[in-house]
């Protein structure tokens, strides 16, 4: 019995890692955008959904999952650039509620627009044949595609970290999120940086969408619940903190997975229990700076 439990527990922890991977990709985008622009992007779930739909479209067009995987996040990123330039930019400097309401409205528009184009019934996005199998890990059989999702997430995080820590643009982004006024005073055009960051953030949401599509199915409302869970991740990790988003993403993924093991009905609630507990001890989240929201 104990033997079974130990291997089952290991299996559960592993599954939680994949759940966490999707959360991390979404939360990083949210956190980047919030950290630099103090915009709470409620359309993030819809952009995630859009990533999956673009992926489906590109897969049909090119017949290659790999091309779709590369291009869909780019398309969503470009769409994000447009959103920033045309809509969100007008609201900088206003209350934090204004962009929140704008992006919330945008998320509703996107869901309905997708239904008009692709219909109300969900779509199927198949993983490429070479990733369709399952491997025996010793303690469990695990889908290769899910291992692939873990690998892609890790790779993207590495690239992002190198970009932010090792390039000049990354330096400006980090500086801009600390003290935008000073960065401007030094003659940096923060407008272009904002545009870029919004594009990266939304592109990551699109990537999470196309990665999640083959696991969970593609449908217009697929971003509705996950955006809430992603906000929880961001809040637990600390608004604007990238390390926080990663740690909290994995943490929430594991909490969901392990709670499911013990008491499946509590899995959804536990996400919010964790958030409440973390906020009681650290009101700005695990890695957040105090005062960012004021």
């Amino acid at each position, binding site marked *: 019995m104990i033997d079974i439990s130990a291997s*089952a527990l290991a*299996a559960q922890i592993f599954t939680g890692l994949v759940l966490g991977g999707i959360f991390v990709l979404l939360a990083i985008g949210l956190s980047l955008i919030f950290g630099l622009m103090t915009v709470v992007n409620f359309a993030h779930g819809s952009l995630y959904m859009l990533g999956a739909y673009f992926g489906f479209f590109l897969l049909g067009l090119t017949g290659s999952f790999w091309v779709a995987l590369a291009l869909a996040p780019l398309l969503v990123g470009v769409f994000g650039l447009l959103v920033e330039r045309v809509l969100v930019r007008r609201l900088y400097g206003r209350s934090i509620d204004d962009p929140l309401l704008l992006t919330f409205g945008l998320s509703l528009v996107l869901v309905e627009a997708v239904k008009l184009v692709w219909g*109300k019934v969900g779509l*199927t996005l198949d993983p490429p044949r070479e990733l369709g199998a399952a491997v025996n890990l010793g303690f469990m*059989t695990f889908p290769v595609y899910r291992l692939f999702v873990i690998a892609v997430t890790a790779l993207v995080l590495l690239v992002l970290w190198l970009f932010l820590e090792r390039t000049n643009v990354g330096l400006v982004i980090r500086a801009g999120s600390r003290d935008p006024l000073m960065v401007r005073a030094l003659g940096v055009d923060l407008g272009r940086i904002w545009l870029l960051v919004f594009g990266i953030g939304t592109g990551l949401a699109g990537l999470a969408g196309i990665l999640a599509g083959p696991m969970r199915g593609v449908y217009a409302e697929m971003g509705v619940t996950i955006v809430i869970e992603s906000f929880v991740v961001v809040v637990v990790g600390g608004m604007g903190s990238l390390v926080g988003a990663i740690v909290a993403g994995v943490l929430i993924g594991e909490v969901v997975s392990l709670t499911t093991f013990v008491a499946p009905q509590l899995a959804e609630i536990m996400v919010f229990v964790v958030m409440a507990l973390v906020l009681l001890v650290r009101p700005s989240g695990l890695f957040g700076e105090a005062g960012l929201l004021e």
Partner: protein
Amino acid sequence: MDRRAFLGTATAGAAALALPAVLRAQSKDPVKIGFPLPLTGPFAALANDMQRGATLAMEQVNAKGGVLGRKLDVLFRDDQLKPAVGAQRTKELIENEKVQFVVGGLAAHVQMAINEQTKAAQVLYISVSQSDEISAKPDTSPLTFHEALNPTITGRAVGTWGVQNLGKKWWIVYADYAWGKQINAVFTDIVKKHAGTILGATPYPLGNPEFSAHLPRIQAAKPEVLLAVTPGADGVAFTKQAISFGMKKEMKILAPLHFLFYAKEGGADLFSDIYGGTSFYWEVQDTVPQAKRLVEAWTKRFGVPPDAYGLYGYSGIMEVARGVELARSTDSTAVASALRANPVYDHYKGKQWWRPCDNKSFQDMWIVKGVPQSKVRGEWGYYDVVSRIPANEELDRTCAEKGHA
């Protein structure tokens, strides 16, 4: 004639002239049926099918001159799969649109909310999706009819078949809402009754697309039969994930209900070798002549064959029409009495009947099994028919058990 008398006569005359016009206008007014259903959300494909069924029934009735010389008019409203929205739409249909009857609801919890409204307004309601409570006290009413199968009938029929044919050791994954819980309870009961064991049961929130956290635990328990109570789009996500974890090879997968449109959405290979029950599958037309007529008319009208829930919608509208003709009235109480007094009907798949004590419909059902893509017949031949389970009142609880004196 003085002025007063003249005015009096003229008014009376005008009124007399106008009266037949009013009467004529009234009798020409359509008979309105309200139809709330979840056109958006995880049951959207089923709701679209249901809307087609109700539309076809309305068109067929109207093509034959309507009911009592009046046209049928079915008003569809999106209840978004939410009880509160279903209640609100139903209230609006009754109060603003003045519908005389309500048919619809495509989830156990939403139809209860609709039923509360129709009960309060004393409007006849034909429920067209699964629920045990809808035909049991205290929820039901003399004006509440239940056309669909219910969890008890489905569970006893499919469960008995499954435990006799697939294996004795079961695990149940079920959507944690009214229908899923009822199905879980009935299957648990019937499997134990046939000397089977339930190794475990896993509830999950309806509409949740992520099952991976549940799967390792189920695999470790090594059940012979995995019962997937994952309705609508959840079934596609669940099956996909179960297969990706290699579970289809390790155990037999059984679903209480199969849904043609989700088989199409997920692809034949996804659902191949998965067993399930259904109140209708279009290829039973090979053995049922009534079904052949309807499948042909339906396919001609919509370009796709009907599935089980579409036909519930079709039959629901047809029963309202039949009841109104029998009662020669659009009064809900009179129509309800007429249906109970003439309980037998046959709209598409053979004899069905209302049990007068609880207004529950009894009907045949089938066990089907998914075929792989290479064996799909034409565009829609996704299943093999494995077994027919004839209509039988003993599959449901008795009226006494349901609280009817």
